[in-house]
Every structure is written in C-alpha cells, then in structure tokens.
C-alpha cells in the first residue's frame, strides 16, 4: 500500500491531467434521453374487486331488460348484454373495450 501511495504522490501531475481530461470528456458528450415514469404498466391497471364487477354486470342486465320498451324485444336483449358488457369493461378499467361496446350498441 505504501508503495502505491508513494507512486500516486509521484504521479500527482499525471493523475490530475487524467482526471481533468475525463471530466472534460464527460461534459462534452450529451446524455441520451431517458423516459422514466413513476407508474409502470402493471400499476396503471388498477384492479377492482370481483364483487364490484359482478354487481355492475347484474345492474347492467337489470337496467338493460328494463329498456325493451324503447324498441323491439330482440333489441332489448341485445342492449342488455351490451350494457352489461360495458359495465364489466368499465369495472375492469378496460376503457377501450367499453368504448367499443358502447359505440357498437349505439349503431
């Protein structure tokens, strides 16, 4: 160790040059971009308890069956299932699917 310390003392000027060269190089080169987000995909998909999803689906079916008066009975059944599906999708945070089902039930 003493030998190393002695050698470092003797090489002080050289080591200072090496350090300043490295510092200069570090500053000259731009850093690549880095996209860091707090929420990872698995955290973004918030889970809802299954009983909430089931309750939402049942409510959807009940409301859906109450709607046939607005159209034919076939349409009423179809609407009920679409609505239930939408409720389930919303309950599971699957917004894309819920939008798809909602829009398809409109046409």
């Amino acid at each position, binding site marked *: *160790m003493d*030998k*190393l310390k002695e*050698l*470092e003392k003797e*090489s002080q000027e*050289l*080591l200072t*040059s*090496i*350090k300043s*060269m*490295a510092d200069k*190089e*570090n*500053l000259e*080169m731009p*850093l*690549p*971009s*880095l996209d*860091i*987000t*707090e929420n990872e995909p698995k955290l973004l998909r918030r889970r809802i308890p299954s009983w909430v999803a089931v309750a939402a689906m049942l409510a959807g079916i009940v409301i859906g069956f109450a709607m046939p008066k607005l159209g034919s009975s076939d349409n009423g059944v179809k609407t009920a299932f679409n609505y239930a599906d939408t409720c389930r999708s919303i309950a599971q945070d699957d917004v894309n699917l819920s939008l798809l089902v909602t829009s398809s039930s409109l046409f």
Partner: protein
Amino acid sequence: MRLTADTFRTLYLEHGPRAQGFFLRMTGYDRELARDLTQDLFMRLWSARGSYDEGRPFSTWMFAIAYNMLKNEYRRRMTVMEYVDNADKEEPVTETDHLEQEQRDQMLRSAIGRLPEPQKVVFLLRYEEELPLSEIARVCSIPEGTVKSRLFSALTAVREYCKNNENQ
C-alpha cells in the same frame, strides 16, 4: 432515500455523465455504444430500484451494474475492444492553442487504453471516478489487496508509456 422518478431523474443528471464517460473509455471511445450502454444501464437501475441499498453510495451500485454490463458486452463480442483504434478516429483539433493539450490527452488515452481490462477498470474507477478502494473492490468483486496491486501495475504502466512518448 426512496428512489422516486424525480429522485432518479436527478441522479441521472448527476451520475449519467460519469457512467457514460466510463463506458466511453472502457469501450475504446465507441460513442454510440457508450450512449446505448448508458441508456440501458439507467433503465436497468430504474427497474432494479427495489434492490438499491440506501446505506451505500449510488455510484457503487451504478458502477457495479455498469461493469457487469461491460463484461457481458466483452463476452458478446468475443474480443477485447481496442481503445486506441477508435481514439485515433476522434475529430482532429484545428485550433493551434489546443493542439499541445490534445496531443497530451491523446497520449493519456493511448496509455490507459493499452492497459489490460482488469487493470483499466480499477484505474478508471480510482483516478477518474475517485471511488474509494473498498468500493472498487465491491464493484469488481475482488479483494481490496488485488485492487491495490492492479492499481500499482496500471499506474506504473501508464507512467512508463507517457515517459517513453512524451518527447516524440
């Protein structure tokens, strides 16, 4: 200190240039590779933030992972990256005032570049990153005594090279 996204971004700005410089010199001045490795390193650090030991300096954790990545890179390439070849491809300096300094820097780059990889890594971590010997030993997973002996050999070789080339 919990590694939140904000904390991590600050650490990236503070330590990113050091990591990139370390990769740059370890890969023989391959700028593209150094940039890719830096980006990859910080993505890995972010993914592994749960394993970060708050009691230890961030730089030790960072360089330990960086060194492992380099070892994998060496293995992948199946060849030692030549420092001098790429160093010679650096853009020529046109300003006369800087010419002497640039020549000296070039000589230092060549001297460090000629070191065997185990010596080079301890040399860079000690004299450029100023890591304590104990932390270098941890980064490289070697005993502290080995760090000292490698440093001694490396510094002797760099001095020797500079002495022989200074007047050329």
